[in-house]
């Protein structure tokens, strides 16, 4: 049996070509699947349980997809709702979905799949030796679990299929692997498992596997032997190279991809051009694991930050920016200690020289002289008020600090007032571990509602 999955784009909120979506819907897909998240934008979103995308844009794109779904009467699946896939962002998508259904007069069955993990439960799992570290991290300790503000587990196809089995029209999944939402239905309907996971990996970023990466919409047809991928925007093509090269993307290993319940191996995959736009892939292998494991992601608070930016234009200071910064830093640490009675262990003070090495830090190998240097100061402390107060002490020195005592007092450029900006809470990723489950649903929760307009 063939199963066609329409993928509107790499992530909800990024935009897609509406004409291409329509063209895809004309080909009678069996489901519409779209990713809603990633760790790629940093730990803030998981730390706070919020989405990085605009609510208005998300609403508008989701409305288009809900209309397309209702017209074709097929499931619409989103994974990793609201960037991080926490309960909070699944419920945010649920509210948007109900609002849109009301507006459109749609009656829909909505399944919510929650991926959130309870801290105490995870500590028990550590003690039961059911959690192991992925390199480069070491064994997980209870204190690290307790530091996380949110922890999610990445669901696989089993949890998505459980949601499909409820007869849901719309599945709002918490954190899942990018591939699981696409691979679930084809595997349930008997597609080749290796092909299903491989096709899902190729399709998870939408048209990124084509010659027109930003065009969004693609369709993948799965069967018992392989899969065929085609982009739907005018002029976009999939070639054996554009498709096979996508295994490289955001992937440490281009041959093996670990998923809940096993791993995909594409060493023997064969990519064949069907015509100038479509590529057929066979030979991918699914290797079932000896146990069922899911990956954990967690983020925790690491302080509150206040930043300031000052611009050096005077050639003498541009040429000696690093030296100036080192002197200023030493001076400020002393001032903070003497005048504020705050020990250096209670905060971090960092300077980044924009135009010198702000991007690569000590890895930078170039040393040509720029016209100007931006000095980005970052203060991180246990409270926002402490971080801002430290930045305020630093303010006049950022503006006037002389390189040597013999020279006249310089004045640098503050681009705005006030010079300091509160960045709020800052988070860090703390987990890179896997949790072994006896049953795939053990770490997940499914909730189903019938919404009537």
């Amino acid at each position, binding site marked *: 049996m063939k199963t066609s999955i329409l993928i509107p784009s790499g992530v909800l909120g990024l935009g897609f070509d509406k004409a291409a979506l329509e063209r895809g819907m004309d080909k009678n897909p069996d489901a519409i699947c779209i990713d809603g998240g990633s*760790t*790629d*934008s*940093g*730990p*803030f979103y998981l730390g706070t349980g919020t989405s990085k995308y605009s609510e208005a844009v998300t609403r508008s794109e989701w409305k288009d997809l809900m209309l397309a779904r209702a017209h074709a009467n097929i499931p619409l699946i989103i994974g990793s709702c609201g960037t991080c896939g926490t309960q909070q962002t699944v419920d945010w998508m649920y509210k948007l979905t109900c609002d849109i259904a009301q507006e459109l007069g749609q009656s829909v069955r909505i399944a919510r799949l929650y991926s959130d993990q309870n801290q105490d439960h995870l500590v028990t799992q550590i003690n039961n030796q059911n959690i192991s570290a*992925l*390199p*480069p*991290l070491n064994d997980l300790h209870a204190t690290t679990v307790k530091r996380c503000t949110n922890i999610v587990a990445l669901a696989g196809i089993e949890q998505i299929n459980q949601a499909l089995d409820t007869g849901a029209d719309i599945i709002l999944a918490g954190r899942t692997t990018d591939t699981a939402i696409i691979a679930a239905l084809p595997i349930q309907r008997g597609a080749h498992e290796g092909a299903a996971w491989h096709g899902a990996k190729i399709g998870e970023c939408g048209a990124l596997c084509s010659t027109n990466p930003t065009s969004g919409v693609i369709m993948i047809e799965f069967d018992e032997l392989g899969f065929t991928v085609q982009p739907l925007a005018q002029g976009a093509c999939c070639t054996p*190279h554009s498709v*096979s*090269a996508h295994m*490289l*993307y*955001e*992937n*440490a*290993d*281009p*041959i093996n991809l670990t998923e809940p319940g096993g791993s995909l191996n594409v060493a023997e995959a064969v990519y064949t051009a069907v015509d100038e736009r479509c590529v057929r892939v066979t030979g991918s292998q699914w290797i079932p694991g000896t146990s069922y494991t899911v990956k954990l992601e967690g983020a925790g608070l*690491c*302080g509150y*930050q206040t930043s300031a930016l000052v611009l050096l234009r005077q050639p003498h200071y541009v040429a000696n920016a690093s030296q100036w910064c080192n002197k200023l830093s030493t001076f400020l640490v002393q001032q903070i200690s003497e005048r504020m009675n705050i020990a250096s262990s209670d905060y*971090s003070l*960092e300077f*980044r020289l924009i135009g010198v090495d*702000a*991007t*690569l*830090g*000590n*890895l930078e*190998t170039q040393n040509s002289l720029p016209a100007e240097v931006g000095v980005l100061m*970052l203060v*991180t402390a246990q409270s926002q008020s402490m971080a801002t107060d430290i930045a305020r002490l630093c303010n006049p020195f950022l503006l006037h600090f002389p390189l040597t005592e013999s020279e006249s007092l310089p004045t640098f450029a503050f681009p705005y007032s006030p010079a300091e900006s509160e960045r709020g809470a*800052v*988070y*860090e*990723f703390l987990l*890179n571990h896997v949790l072994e489950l006896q049953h795939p649903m053990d770490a997940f929760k499914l909730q189903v509602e019938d919404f009537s307009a």
Partner: protein
Amino acid sequence: MTTLAEVSKNIRSKNAGPFWATIDIFFDDKQHFEHASQNLQTQVVAAQLQVAENQLKRFDLADILVIKISFPRPIVQGHISDRDMHGAQYAWLLSDIPLD
């Protein structure tokens, strides 16, 4: 002296999850790929990235004319000391590596 940038079509880098980064070096043809595959020293790449050589995973993929190098991020993505959230600038550190 020939540099990696001169021989390759494109060098890109990106996070592969918060704890790893990966660099993909694309080549136009077999000849350039093979030249780089034979002459690019993993040890030199490791030194540029300040990562221990045995931490680097290298894949020379002749089928798609790509050399892929993955490594644990020297600073975890989004840590307060991280300077490049998406890890896309590591690529530039490889441009000037000599191949002769």
